[in-house]
């Protein structure tokens, strides 16, 4: 009974209620969609970080991460990699030789990180081979093929089959240089990485710097399940005590920070939206109470107790808030579903996102949890908004309320 009275009371002032419902709808729609978009952005970043760049777990020489010098290499790393590859929960593992170097084209030069990979094994761990936009993945060139990023290619003004020269330090400290031929150009969402990283064959790089054939600087491990990285990291660490074993979260704290602060940021944004709407709701409900003083007086006179009056005003407020909330969530969802496949192109906003490692095309994620979290916040907002008008209603004295002329 109270529910139906409350619901009908909302529609006594159609325009007034519609205005606040529309405001709620727009605010919540914007919140839900932004949240879905943000979640998409973060998940894409994590996916790119794991699937293209770092993989789940990496092993290094204990001193390497502090000081990435070629001399801090791991011995027998190809064997270790094979052992890890056969561990339960591990999908694939591969070794990488990493050397900081100078790259130069006929026109200009730049600092660069040269990663020597075993193309077959690497393609089981990372999906870099899918990111080739021109040429091929270290193939199609007989001697010294090199894979460079699109941004790097633009900077050096080179194309597929152009020649570049790498200059680097050997294991013994001597400087050496070698000519490479661009086999392919890749493009990924992380612009900084693209500008800083080139790939060559591990064997070519080993020959160049004089590293042992079994040596490497990095072992990258891809897992079957995204969630098991801590367990398996501990297992690997227990087995190879003299190596440094880290998960992607430890290797890229900035990425895991974004993931962990995503919810807090969204609660904050929605909190601000709802805080503004709070005053609108209070105002609407206050008007609804003040124009019904006589009726509320009559209801109390004939025996409606304070709990029921309070509940009625509460219900009216919550129903008002939730009508806007539900429409807003549905609209936000529809837009999310609509853009889930096509994505939203943010490149018009400049390449700042890309430089920070984010895709310019974001695919929002329809997540039921978002709706649940938003609804909870609207519920709390509704409760807060209802308190003042409901208290106003309770303070009415029936004898006086009935005497007032309106």
């Amino acid at each position: 009974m109270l529910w139906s009275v409350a619901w009908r009371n909302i529609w006594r002032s159609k325009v007034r209620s519609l205005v606040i419902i529309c405001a709620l709808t727009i605010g919540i729609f914007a919140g839900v969609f932004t949240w879905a978009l943000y979640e998409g952005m973060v998940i894409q970043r994590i996916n790119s970080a794991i699937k293209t760049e770092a993989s789940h777990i990496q092993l290094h020489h204990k001193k390497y991460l502090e000081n990435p010098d070629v001399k801090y290499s791991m011995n027998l790393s190809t064997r270790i990699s094979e052992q890890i590859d056969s561990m339960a929960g591990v999908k694939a593992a591969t070794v990488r030789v990493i050397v900081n170097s100078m790259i130069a084209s006929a026109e200009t030069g730049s600092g660069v990180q040269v990663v020597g990979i075993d193309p077959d094994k690497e393609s089981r761990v990372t999906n870099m081979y899918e990111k080739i936009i021109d040429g091929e993945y270290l193939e199609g060139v007989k001697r010294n093929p090199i894979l460079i990023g699109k941004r790097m290619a633009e900077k050096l003004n080179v194309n597929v089959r152009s020649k570049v020269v790498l200059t680097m330090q050997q294991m013994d400290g001597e400087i050496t240089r070698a000519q490479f031929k661009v086999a392919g150009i890749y493009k990924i969402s992380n612009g900084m990485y693209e500008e800083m990283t080139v790939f060559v064959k591990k064997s070519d790089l080993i020959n160049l710097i004089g590293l042992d054939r079994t040596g490497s600087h990095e072992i990258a491990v891809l897992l079957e399940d995204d969630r098991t990285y801590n367990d398996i990291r501990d297992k690997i660490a227990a087995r190879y005590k003299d190596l440094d074993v880290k998960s992607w979260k430890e290797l890229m704290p900035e990425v895991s920070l974004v993931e962990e602060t995503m919810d807090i940021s969204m609660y904050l944004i929605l909190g601000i939206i709802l805080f503004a709407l709070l005053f609108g709701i209070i105002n609407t409900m206050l008007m609804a109470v003040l124009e019904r003083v006589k009726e509320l007086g009559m209801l109390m006179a004939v025996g409606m107790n304070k709990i029921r009056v309070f509940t009625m005003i509460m219900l009216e407020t919550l129903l008002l808030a939730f009508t806007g909330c539900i429409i807003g969530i549905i609209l936000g969802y529809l837009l999310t579903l609509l853009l889930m496949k096509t994505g939203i192109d943010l490149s018009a906003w400049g390449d700042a996102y890309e430089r920070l490692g984010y895709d310019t095309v974001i695919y929002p994620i329809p997540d039921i949890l978002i709706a649940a979290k938003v609804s909870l916040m609207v519920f709390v907002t509704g409760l807060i908004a209802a308190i003042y008008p409901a208290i106003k209603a309770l303070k009415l004295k029936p004898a006086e309320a009935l005497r007032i002329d309106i």
Partner: protein
Amino acid sequence: MKVIDIKNLTKIYNDSEYKVNALNGIDLSFEEGEFAAVVGPSGSGKTTLLNIVGGLDKPSGGEVIIDHTNIGKLKSSRLIDFRLKNIGFVFQAYNLIPVLTARENVEFIMHLQGKPKAEREKRMKDLMSAVGLSDRIDSRPSKLSGGQQQRVAVARALASKPKFILADEPTANLDSKSTENLLDIMEKLNKEENTTFIFSTHDARVVKKARRVITIEDGKVVSDEIRK
């Protein structure tokens, strides 16, 4: 059987500037089944008296005893329940909940009392037919005339089977035909259900129907006349 016993009732309104002695020692009692009018000039204290007897306002002195309870001593939360169980109200206006239909308005108090659906339904139908509005049970108040609305209000007041009904100028907004009609219905229900009716009025035609006429002036009973 005595339904209401009023002893030396006083009410002083203490506003910041004015001090109004609205009731100055009223002694009255009402028997079950009475059909009584309270009359008197404007400002004489009729509304004040009915409000205190109905537990809507607190007395400054004296006692109002209903069913062995001095209602002036009840806490306001207990008072609401007391009103719900024992007293029916008909006001001059704003009697009905505008968003509810006539049927829902009549059932509302029975709802608050927690009466089962079948009982509510039957009582509502009986009363709506007693007030001659069987064909309008699904109309909202805004679709009813002032007289019809007051008849629904009477049905609503009776629905909870109260010990007595208080009506403060129930006909003040009605034309003479509706006034007569409403009084006839009240009289009929008073006889059929033996419900006590106490109403205030300025209207001579209403006074004529009453079987007891209590006149107050300046917060005192100046005459108390029982007819027929």
